[in-house]
């Protein structure tokens, strides 16, 4: 099909300009994100957020804005017009052994180009293998072979989007016999080799520490905090393992737990007022509840910024 109708004997009935509604070359304001609290952006909250106009940033899952057109893009344009946006990739499968999906990488590149996000991040995990998309953040062993593969993938992403990404630490439930490095050593080496920053998910640290029986504060002390460009906070669910001991699930469907707030204050006392996001992805509350969680974060960040801060 030749949509513009310029061939042969054809009579073009409409001007070419009408044919494809090009997204106008939007030039969004370069809002700074430093010292801000953020919240996951969910379309259900759009009217409340637009009426709100507060100091905040919003994070979106990049994949939700990879359709060709329609309402999702319109909504994100409205958000991006008024707020700094963090583009959070969920499905790049950076931690997988397979080559990155070039089509997906190109979609990701276009989303970065289109929305000029203040922050761009992805996960230390895999979700696609042999052409199957599992829609979950799956774990990997930490050793020299996986380190080399992950670094190659991050180099490829950063070359494509022409900027560094922030890599998020996973929540983990089990370990691999083939692991030879600690997670903190693994991410430190990745940051060193690729120049990427890190997204420190404090809830993931707490979940992993409980599940694996290590000290969350030790983990943070060993974490390369100087590379952290964003922090995530979220709620988790509680189950039990085969030995009837607590097994926490990174569920993003409830408020942030008290222990995680304390761990956050411990982290923030060491890294300073890093942009911090409240993640909430299912069992979504009304905007006032999510907003109240974000306001709580903002209060902590403002205390850090004003210097009146004493670590818990």
């Amino acid at each position, binding site marked *: 099909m030749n949509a513009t109708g310029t061939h042969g004997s054809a009579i073009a009935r409409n001007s070419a300009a009408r044919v494809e509604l090009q997204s106008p070359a939007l030039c969004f304001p370069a809002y700074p994100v430093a010292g801000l609290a953020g919240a996951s952006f969910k379309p259900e909250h759009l009217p409340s957020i637009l009426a709100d106009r507060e100091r905040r940033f919003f994070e979106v899952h990049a994949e939700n804005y990879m359709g060709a057109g329609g309402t999702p893009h319109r909504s994100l344009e409205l958000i991006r017009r008024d707020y700094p946006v963090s583009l959070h990739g969920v499905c790049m499968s950076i931690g997988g*052994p397979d080559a990155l999906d070039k089509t997906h990488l190109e979609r990701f590149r276009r989303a970065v180009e289109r929305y000029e996000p203040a922050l761009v991040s992805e996960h230390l995990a895999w979700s696609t293998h042999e052409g199957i998309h599992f829609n979950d953040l799956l774990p990997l062993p930490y050793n020299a072979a996986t380190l080399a593969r992950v670094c190659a993938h991050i180099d490829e992403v950063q070359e494509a989007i022409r900027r560094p990404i922030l890599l998020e630490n996973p929540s983990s439930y089990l370990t691999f016999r083939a692991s030879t490095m600690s997670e903190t050593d693994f991410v430190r080496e990745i940051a060193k080799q690729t120049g990427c920053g890190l997204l420190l998910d404090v809830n993931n640290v707490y979940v992993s520490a409980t599940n694996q029986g290590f000290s969350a504060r030790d983990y943070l002390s060993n974490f390369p905090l100087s590379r952290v460009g964003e922090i995530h906070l979220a709620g988790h669910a509680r189950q039990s393992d085969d030995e009837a001991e607590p097994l926490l699930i990174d569920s993003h469907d409830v408020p942030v737990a008290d222990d995680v707030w304390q761990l956050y204050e411990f982290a923030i006392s060491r890294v300073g007022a890093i942009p911090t996001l409240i993640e909430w992805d299912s069992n979504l509350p009304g905007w006032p509840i999510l907003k109240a969680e974000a306001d709580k974060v903002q209060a902590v960040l403002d205390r850090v910024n004003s210097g009146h801060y004493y670590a818990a």
Partner: protein
Amino acid sequence: MPRESSHTDTRPLGYAAAFFPALLNPDLETPSLVIGPKGKSAAKRYNIYRNNVTVSLIEALAAVFPAVQRITGVEFFRAMARCYVREMVPSSPLLFEYGHEFPEFIERYAYASEMPWLADVARIERGWLDAYHAADAYPLSTHDLADSTREQLIELKFAPHPTTRIIRSRFAAVTIFAANRTDGPFGEINAAEPEDALITRPQYDVVLRRLRPGGAAFLLALLDGRPLGAAVASALNAAPSFDIAANIAGAIEAGAFMTTRVGGPM
């Protein structure tokens, strides 16, 4: 089903190949390459990933097919979706593209055989979401045809708008779909009444219309690149009562087309 021995791929990058087969196959044991801390078992731990994968894909289908779920009830839907997920894992990380084979699956799903119209409702619902995410474009307006002579009109070809979808049903799938996309009550529906759907999205809101007699034959001919005169002939052949003016005006008003041209390939 025999239990396969645990997957023990020992290549340095063989972890994904060893980890994934049991994710969607409950008959397989926990892969032996993973362990819990301090020598603990990893069975329940691995099951978290099994559960995440299956439940998140079921939820992705429920998000694509809310009317189907409302019709069947949540429990029925989740059981049906679980079977589909195990048979048709997604290949794209974009979950709003998942479930294109779900209508055909519903046709084969024995427990749904008492709802022969359910697959067509799913087709409309899948088409609705395709239109929702399709590319933005200005639709053709009736003004664009105002100065055409009758001879020109007969030869006119129409390029479809990127959001346009036509779904034909032997059942009242349009009415059933519309009644189940909202929570409100609805009156009795004669499911045996055949209906054809036109789905468009002239700007941001998806529009669903029930086509008049001959309307589907007419639009499918136009979407196939045939000129207006030939499309009218197909429509009259399908339904002698076909109303040319009402069908053209209705389709243009719905935003079904993007441009027109005379001659050449569309």
